[in-house]
């Protein structure tokens, strides 16, 4: 084998490795990020049902955690997915914070449901599935 053939073979193997790595990382990262959003939303929902309102420190803490976790994951996701496709979750989480400050239970719950819906939908169109392939 000539030097170029070796270079070609090694490069192709490296490229194959890079492709596998990127595909796996994307899948894991998307799943992790969206699962974390869903988990926080469910916790907020459960706490809201338990406390009967949003004006309490536990919901504030969980909303903070949700925002922090999403910002951290969004930064990483931007390397792999279209920014425009994931910005709605960030916008809706910011609204949650604003409704929390205004003590607007109704809007807060509506926003929370939206965040959950987005998390579920994103899992559909960002994950690898036969629907997405076709």
């Amino acid at each position: 084998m000539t030097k170029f053939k070796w270079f070609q073979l090694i490069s192709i193997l490296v490229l194959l490795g890079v492709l596998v790595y990127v595909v796996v990382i994307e899948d894991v990262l998307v799943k992790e990020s969206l699962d974390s959003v869903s988990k926080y939303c469910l916790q907020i929902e459960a706490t809201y049902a338990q406390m009967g309102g949003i004006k309490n420190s536990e919901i504030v803490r969980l909303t903070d955690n949700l925002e922090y976790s999403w910002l951290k994951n969004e930064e990483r996701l931007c390397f792999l997915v279209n920014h425009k496709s994931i910005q709605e979750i960030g916008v809706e989480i910011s609204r949650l914070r604003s409704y929390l400050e205004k003590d607007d239970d109704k809007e807060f719950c509506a926003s929370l449901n939206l965040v959950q819906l987005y998390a579920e939908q994103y899992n559909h169109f960002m994950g690898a599935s036969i629907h997405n392939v076709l």
Partner: protein
Amino acid sequence: MLTIVIRAIVIYIVILFLYRLMGKRQLGEMQPFELVLTLIIADLATIPMAEISVPVLHGIVPLLTLVVMHFIITLLSRWSTKFSNFVSGKPVIVIDPNGVDYKAIKNLNLSLDDIMESLRGEGYFKLEQVEYAIMETNGKISVLPKSNFAPVTNGDLKIKVQEGGVPINIVSEGKIIAENLKLAQLSRKDVDMMLDRAKIKRLKDCLVLAIDLSGEAYIQGYGEKYQTFKFKPLDGVKL
């Protein structure tokens, strides 16, 4: 704007690397699957360059996938003739000693005019000049002319000619190509001698100086007519 500039540079480097990886054949005579690849690469590269919200990886990952696919197809084509025929097709004889094979031309989705055009491109303006014409897999036509119309060669005339080999470019645009000078086993003094012989005063006035294995030198100064002369045979030089 800086983002676009950086992205364009990154994608340019990636594509350059990928084309080098695919080999030189990609740049010349392309097989059908190579043409497809070239068209897709051109299109894919522009997406992340123009759209900032799309990550660069969205452009690079499909490029890498296509190159890996190309490599696998090339490898399989080398291993299996059947696969190669499936992917690239087979050369087809469109003109044989009986004349034009119209059925073959129709199967290739070509017209007789297309064949005539290709033949003219090869220097054959009459069908009766052609013994065989073969449509190659890369879309080019290869022609075997009838003996009466084939160009006369030195072999036909039994003339013995010393092989000149590939000429070596010693000077290009006023600069000595050191690598070629070493290859031709010549010295700077030899170059000066050739320049003197061509009445070119300075090296930087020389547009081109090439010499073949038989010692035939071709030299031309800027704005002057070229000259050829016998210098000395390049004995022992291996190209």
